[in-house]
């Protein structure tokens, strides 16, 4: 193994939790926090979801301390989506401060865990999401943990789209990717894993799928061959954020992706450091420019004063959140453990309001 030759990036591993809405990113974030305290892992937590209603974990850095999501909605009269992206943009303009804080404290932590907005596109497709990922990856061993909602991936076609999207993210962010199959307390991951290991088994499943949406074309089949190649570079782990099952493997996967980072991206960075630095800075500068335009566009006078929706500069909050004690209490259920009420196959949450009702309430 060439391991000896690979230069290791010092400092913690950064794990960006990315996944479709409701896949369980925030619950996993909470679970990792809990398990870290239990096992004495030195973790640093960052919440980047401006619209999170409540973050049960007190994150070391929380975008909501810096940007007021509701305020952004009001002040710029944006809808929910626009406000998420704008909040993230506002925060990204200050991400240099976050990097300073992290650089200062690299020796204190082994893992940096980051929760991202529920709307996956808001992070992966926005200039600010890329800026944040690139900033992190330029100095720290960074990986993406792609959280998969296992129960919702029972249909082979859905599973395929989910994996195609994961592959898209691999290319977009160019970082090692670990697929975390979550909610295995509800649905065991073996079916999905068998599809990943054997595309013929997957084809059979595709053919036998009789759900109403299912339709299969030659494109599906060709795509499964592409995915077969993708699975070779994809690491995976099965977890339950609800019960904590599989979290010990999770740590191992983060350590493994550090190695992958060093062998691929980290090595790339070192090999052409100067060149990369410049390109990276250009990228950052370009993204910054786009952000400034986006932010400025919000303001008709295009004056760039500190946006009023920024409630505070980025700050580290160690006083409120001391690093987890190395020897945490061993109680079976600490109040810190994520409490999850997940109904298998939840029925659509459509409430039958009459049309008139809704019309009346939405005609403003």
């Amino acid at each position, binding site marked *: 193994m060439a391991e000896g030759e690979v230069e290791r990036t010092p400092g913690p591993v950064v794990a960006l939790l990315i996944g479709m809405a409701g896949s369980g990113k925030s619950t996993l974030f909470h679970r990792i926090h809990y398990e870290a305290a239990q096992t004495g892992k030195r973790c640093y937590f960052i919440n980047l979801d401006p619209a999170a209603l409540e973050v049960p974990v007190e994150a070391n850095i929380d975008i909501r301390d810096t940007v007021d999501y509701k305020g952004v909605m009001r002040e710029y009269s944006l809808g929910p989506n626009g406000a998420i992206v704008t909040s993230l943009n506002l925060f990204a303009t200050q991400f240099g401060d976050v990097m300073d804080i992290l650089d200062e404290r690299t020796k204190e932590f082994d893992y940096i865990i980051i929760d991202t907005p529920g709307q996956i596109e808001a992070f992966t497709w926005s200039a600010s999401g890329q800026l944040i990922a690139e900033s992190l990856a330029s100095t720290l061993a960074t990986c993406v943990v792609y959280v998969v909602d296992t129960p919702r991936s029972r249909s082979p076609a859905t599973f395929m*789209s989910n994996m195609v999207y994961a592959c898209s993210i691999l290319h977009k962010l160019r970082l090692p990717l670990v697929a975390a199959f979550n909610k295995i307390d509800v649905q065991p991951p073996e079916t999905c894993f068998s599809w990943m290991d054997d595309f013929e088994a997957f084809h059979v499943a595709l053919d036998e799928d009789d759900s109403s949406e299912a339709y299969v074309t030659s494109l599906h089949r060709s795509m499964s061959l592409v995915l077969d190649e993708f699975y070779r570079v994809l690491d995976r782990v099965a977890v339950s954020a609800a019960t904590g099952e599989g979290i010990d493997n999770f740590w191992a996967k983060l350590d493994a992706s550090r190695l992958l980072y060093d062998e691929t991206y980290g090595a790339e960075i070192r090999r052409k450091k100067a060149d990369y630095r410049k390109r990276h800075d250009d990228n950052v500068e370009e993204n910054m420019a786009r952000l400034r335009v986006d932010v400025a566009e919000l303001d008709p006078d295009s004056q760039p004063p500190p946006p009023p929706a920024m409630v505070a500069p980025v700050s580290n909050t160690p006083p409120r959140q001391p690093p987890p004690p190395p020897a945490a209490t061993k109680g079976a259920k600490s109040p810190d453990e994520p409490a999850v009420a997940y109904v298998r196959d939840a029925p659509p949450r459509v409430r039958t309001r009459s049309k008139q009702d809704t019309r009346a309430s939405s005609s403003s």
Partner: protein
Amino acid sequence: MPFGVLVIGPAGAGKTRFCAALQTYGDVQSRSIHVINLDPAAEDIPYRTDVDVREIVTVDDAMAELKFGPNGGLVYCMEYLLAHSEWLEEKLLAFAPEDTILFDCPGQLELYTHVPVMPRLVALMQRWDTRLCVAYMMDSVSLGEPSKFIAGALAGLSAMLQLPLPRLTVLSKTDLLAPDVLEEFLEIGSATTFLQTCDNRNTKFLKLTTVIANLLDDHSLLSYVPFSIHDEDSPSHVLTYADQLTQYTDEAEVRIPRDIEGEEEEDPDTAFKALMHHHR
């Protein structure tokens, strides 16, 4: 049975402006082009909405009244729409057979996969005898870097794989690209070749990149139609393509606007083929 184009793509890709531009073009050409907004979280809409899902439900309402977050709110609204699909059916019935309808869709992928509202809506609309195709809007910024280009193509595919419709990919905001970058890209016409022009130092992923490029080529998924809201010719180019997919030309030949300024002698089909010479 009107013709329909589902306009999908991530937020900010340009779906809404695209619909507006095509509507304006329709006005000028006296071709009947309507826009239906299906995004319950839409903000300022620059086009005339002939039908708007926000008439029956909005994400803001769902968030305020039912205490949903933005995601839960969106899912709620779309499921609400699905549960009241007769509202949409009624609206669609009012259109004339030769009308073209653009559907400005929400971009969130979850609506195509986990909570497959969009595939179900499409299935319904097909039952109501509309001829549909899907246009995936991809920001041309992604041409700047091969990995971003692949990322964009795959993100579109993950949604389009769930929709049993003919598809085209619209490369939006081409005015932001250096003209030679766009030209070179369209000229190459092959993902495999395009990616070979780029430096692929990361051998770990080389094989993966290659098979993806082959797939894009084999299935003619690299049939990109350039589009810019600042380019007068863009709407007609896109429509030429979409019309082929929905077979609009076959059904309503008389309505095709001839004598497009400056392009009299050009048969739309030839122009189309020249543009899309790499399309099967």
